[in-house]
């Protein structure tokens, strides 16, 4: 069964550094998402992406965040200047249409 893959599985970075989290969604899916889960808390929506543009974003997704689909397969989340509070699991998800979300297994981001 096709799956969403995320790399790296764990990223450690220093405060103020830029990080790029990478995702390869399921190939025929059209809708792409990033979610975040701080340890012990709920899965929070960050951003949705459709037709090469952001369709919706949350209050968390401020100017420090950006997303890109640079080619036909990758979907990336960039954090320009990381803060301690950005430490979390970041999940990518993709969706075919009016169907459930398919999640990757996440990137654990640790900001020191």
């Amino acid at each position, binding site marked *: 069964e096709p799956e*969403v893959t995320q790399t790296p599985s764990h990223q450690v970075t220093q405060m103020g550094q830029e990080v790029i989290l990478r995702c390869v969604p399921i190939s025929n899916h059209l*809708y792409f*998402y990033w*979610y975040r889960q701080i340890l012990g*808390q*709920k*899965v*929070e*929506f960050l951003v*949705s992406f*459709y037709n090469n543009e952001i*369709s*919706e974003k*949350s209050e968390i997704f401020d100017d420090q965040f950006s997303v890109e689909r640079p080619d036909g397969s990758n979907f990336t989340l960039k954090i320009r200047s990381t803060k301690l509070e950005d430490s979390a*699991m970041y*999940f990518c*998800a993709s*969706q075919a249409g009016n169907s*459930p*979300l*398919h*999640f*990757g*297994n*996440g990137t*654990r981001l640790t900001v020191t």
Partner: protein
Amino acid sequence: SQKIEQNSEALNIQEGKTATLTCNYTNYSPAYLQWYRQDPGRGPVFLLLIRENEKEKRKERLKVTFDTTLKQSLFHITASQPADSATYLCALLGNTGGFKTIFGAGTRLFVKA
């Protein structure tokens, strides 16, 4: 504001019993409701979707009900097994007309052998 509430206390049950998890929501008129399973350190995995015009949906040992008057969904696992131990998340499509799926905080289920 839109809220999804799930029982934050863990649910402990004996193997073979039925587990029942509750999801309540406010300020939503969802077209459908979803349940996901999340294991530690892993992404959520879709289990079941129930539409607003459906009262009940079943898949193997899983059953979901959806009461749009009470604004509540119940998720049942019958003949529970230790492998069912996980966190179960209720999810709704947001009211903004877009594609934002919002998740409840989840209920942790422990099934003892």
